[in-house]
């Protein structure tokens, strides 16, 4: 497979069926940067003067996001929350520190670290047990709180997270399956600082799939934690992602049509729909052959039968 963008058709490193394209390393990096720039512009996420706080975990998405924002020339620092999940947290902390020291520092960016155990007296697993709450829900609450607090207290203009197309499509699927309408409003890639004390939040990777971001991390030699969080085993989000990936394999572009279609509908609310009865009364008339309701002069059934009879007679 060769690059579909290069005039010299260099060997491709990734095929993107949803775009009917394949890219060599350099064209792929350009593609990713363009997708992020497009998301930032379309959803009015950032301005060049903004001080940005990136939420980093040591995983591919957040480290790739920090890297891309710095490459695009934004002023982006990062916050890492050490959750105290044994060797998993130690390893992810080390990866974040490595990127901060070896790449981000050269752009003048700094890393802020919050250690849950230092403030709460226990790690996330122990806290979840004490509070009788699921670990992932405890973790989500702590991370959202700490990121927002750091953004407000340290006067960042906007907080950026590494949520990607798969995250948003899976979340949308979960919300629709359970008709959680209240949560649908929060699925916009830009959430404004709606009240005093809330930081503006943006998701610049929302146009890129999880696989594309992982590939970007590999071609840029970003050292991220491949191991899955031990607490996420069996999570519903992973199940939704697996289902969506099966659909995507059979029908490339499914995830983007699902999520972007939702965003389009959110941006342009439809006029109240005409009732089915009103529409039927406006558009249907009796078939001139059999009398059953139809939008055409002769109904499709009568046309089909007439055609079949004439073919049989021939």
């Amino acid at each position, binding site marked *: 497979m060769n690059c579909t963008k290069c005039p010299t058709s260099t060997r491709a*490193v990734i*095929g993107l069926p949803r775009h009917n394209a394949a890219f060599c390393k350099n064209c792929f990096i350009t593609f990713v940067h363009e997708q992020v720039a497009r998301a930032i512009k379309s959803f009015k996420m950032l301005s060049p003067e903004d001080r940005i706080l990136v939420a980093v975990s040591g995983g591919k998405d957040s480290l790739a996001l920090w890297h891309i924002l710095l490459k695009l020339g934004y002023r982006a620092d990062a916050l890492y929350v050490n959750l105290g999940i044994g060797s998993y947290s130690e390893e992810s902390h080390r990866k974040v520190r490595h990127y901060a020291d070896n790449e981000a520092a050269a752009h003048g960016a700094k890393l802020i670290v919050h250690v849950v155990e230092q403030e709460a007296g226990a790690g996330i697993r122990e806290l979840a047990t004490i509070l009788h709450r699921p670990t992932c829900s405890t973790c989500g609450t702590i991370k959202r709180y700490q990121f927002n607090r750091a953004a407000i207290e340290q006067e960042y203009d906007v907080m950026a997270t590494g949520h990607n197309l798969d995250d948003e499509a899976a979340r949308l699927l979960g919300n629709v399956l359970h008709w959680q309408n209240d949560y649908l409003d929060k699925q916009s890639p830009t959430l404004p600082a709606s009240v005093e004390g809330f930081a503006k939040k943006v998701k610049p990777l929302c146009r890129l799939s999880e696989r594309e971001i992982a590939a970007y991390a590999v071609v840029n030699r970003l050292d991220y934690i491949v191991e899955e969080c031990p607490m996420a085993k069996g999570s519903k989000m992973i199940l939704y992602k697996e289902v969506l990936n099966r659909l995507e394999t059979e029908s490339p572009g499914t995830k983007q049509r699902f999520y972007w279609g939702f965003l389009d509908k959110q941006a342009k609310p439809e006029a109240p729909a005409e009732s089915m009865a009103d529409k039927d009364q406006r558009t249907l008339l009796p078939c001139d052959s059999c009398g059953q309701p139809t939008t055409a002069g002769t109904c499709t059934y009568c046309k089909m039968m007439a055609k079949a009879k004439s073919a049989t007679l021939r």
Partner: protein
Amino acid sequence: MLVQLSHPNRQIEVKGPKRTKDLLRELNLVMEAHLVIRGDELVTEDEWLADADQIEIRPVISGG
């Protein structure tokens, strides 16, 4: 070829030559949820993998 898999970490031996997409199909893995890396380079689904290659199949799905 030696194939490195994750979740859990393990290595398996697979007979080559074989196309990337056929290797994934044999292992019942979906391309959309994985990257295939030869040495330290990404390979596309139509690429032929040889017996001497060292391959990593890296999952890309995370809990979110």
